[in-house]
């Protein structure tokens, strides 16, 4: 259900311990710290293995997250805005990661550009509450999604590389 490479990446992301959502006051602040620590470590791991692929930041309450992710296809970099809210049910339910600019371009998406994950993701997440955090959702959710969908979107001509777009115009 999860390939070996993803498993290895996943094993290197620090697990979280505080089970708290955005309505849990001080407990949430603790959880948010853990989220950041885990994410920072994951980004560092990615850089070390030459596979840096996203940046995220949040509002000061940590309830709304935004940033960029990118995917390299045939030596060209395709970059997209990422965003999601922390639902009141977090961490019992995972975050719903969205790439708004791809909304309507692929069937593997719900309204608002929320990516459609496989049947495996939710049970896997549920079995790992509260140990999994945002970093795990990125590694298990968005990472594999980009790897499957972006090459397909490029092949279908739905998305084009920004520089080649400019080249056509000029």
């Amino acid at each position, binding site marked *: 259900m999860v390939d070996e490479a993803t498993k290895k990446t996943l094993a290197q992301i620090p697990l979280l311990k505080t089970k708290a959502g955005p*309505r849990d006051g001080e407990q949430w602040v603790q959880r*948010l710290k*853990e989220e950041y620590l885990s994410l920072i470590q994951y*980004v560092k791991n990615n850089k070390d293995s030459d596979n840096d692929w996203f940046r995220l930041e949040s509002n000061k309450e940590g309830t709304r997250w935004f940033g960029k992710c990118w995917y390299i296809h045939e030596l060209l970099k395709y970059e997209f805005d990422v965003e999601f*809210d922390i*639902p009141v049910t977090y961490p019992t339910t995972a975050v719903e990661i969205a790439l708004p600019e791809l909304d309507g371009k692929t069937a593997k998406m719900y309204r608002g550009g929320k990516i459609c994950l496989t049947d495996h993701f939710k049970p896997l997440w549920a079995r790992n509450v509260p*140990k999994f955090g945002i970093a795990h959702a990125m590694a298990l959710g968005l990472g594999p999604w980009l790897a499957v969908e972006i090459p397909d979107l490029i092949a279908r001509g739905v998305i084009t590389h920004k520089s080649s777009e400019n080249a056509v115009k000029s």
Partner: protein
Amino acid sequence: METVEELKKRIANLEKQLAESLQTKNVSSRGKISAMSAEVVDSNPYSRLMALKRMGIVDNYERIREFSVAVVGVGGVGSVTAEMLTRCGIGKLILFDYDKVELANMNRLFYQPHQAGMSKVEAAERTLREINPDVEFEVYNYNITTVDNFQHFMDRIRNGGIGGAKPVDLVLSCVDNFEARMAINTCAPPLVVATNTDEKTLKREGVCAASLPTTMGVVAGFLVQNVLKYLLGFGDVSYYLGYNALQDFFPTMALKPNPQCDDRFCRTRQEEYQAREATRPKEEKSEVKKEEEIVHDENPWEIELVSETTAEELQAAEGDKPVLTKGVTVAYTKPASSPDGDNSATIQDNDLSIEELMKQMQSL
């Protein structure tokens, strides 16, 4: 980007819609009716409903006006649910949904192509007011799972009753996603009705959602039937009623609070209930007959079937599973929580503040 041609088409479309809406305003349906009448005349919209009293099914049908119901999600199931309750003359409906009507919704009931682009709650309110102006409506076009909206959502549940300052009588969860469902009810684990087809073999190539108007109509019908029975006090209300369309199989069972519920307030209430129950006199249990073990006459090689996992291992992996009726299973299991032995992979706390961590993240 839309072309001029497309924009022109859109304007023409909008003009047509405007003309239509002006026309319908002129032939306004009917005025409000202050009291439900049982008079059997063609012009009485409630005559067939009030006849349920004469037939001895419902004692006091007019009471339906005293109830307020929240419908969360007005998609395939929720919109039909809302329409049924509107036609029944429910006192008040509070609708929640953040979605817009799309042409992709036309495989289901209720919404019409000319409503594409409107918010679902707004489109629903217009149609429903037209059908029954006696019903009071409150509609909210937002996602209930975000922190701010959830606060407001909870406030409307607490104070959305008839006349205000009292809770709604029922909340109907008609949402299409796990997150919103958990926001409404954390207690019940997701259940699935076995279809005799392995769900894992379902092809999901290039699709995320599939639906039929029939399934949704069936589900909404059963939902509202039970709402009416519950509110008006007739018949038996089903705790759980599942539906497998492939075999026309309808499992039913009683539902109990989940002892593993994530909500600690819920678990506290459950403990209080258990304590109350414990003080009540016990009923004697009847003995359960043990099934006889099958022993084959001949087994010269002494072949035995041994499970790869022991009962204990299985229990640890799957946790406590609720007792369910035949044909219903949990969508997934959760391992029994074990005392944390190995903490090596767990985060190591440091003294940095959130602000410092945010800065560190940005500087990566």
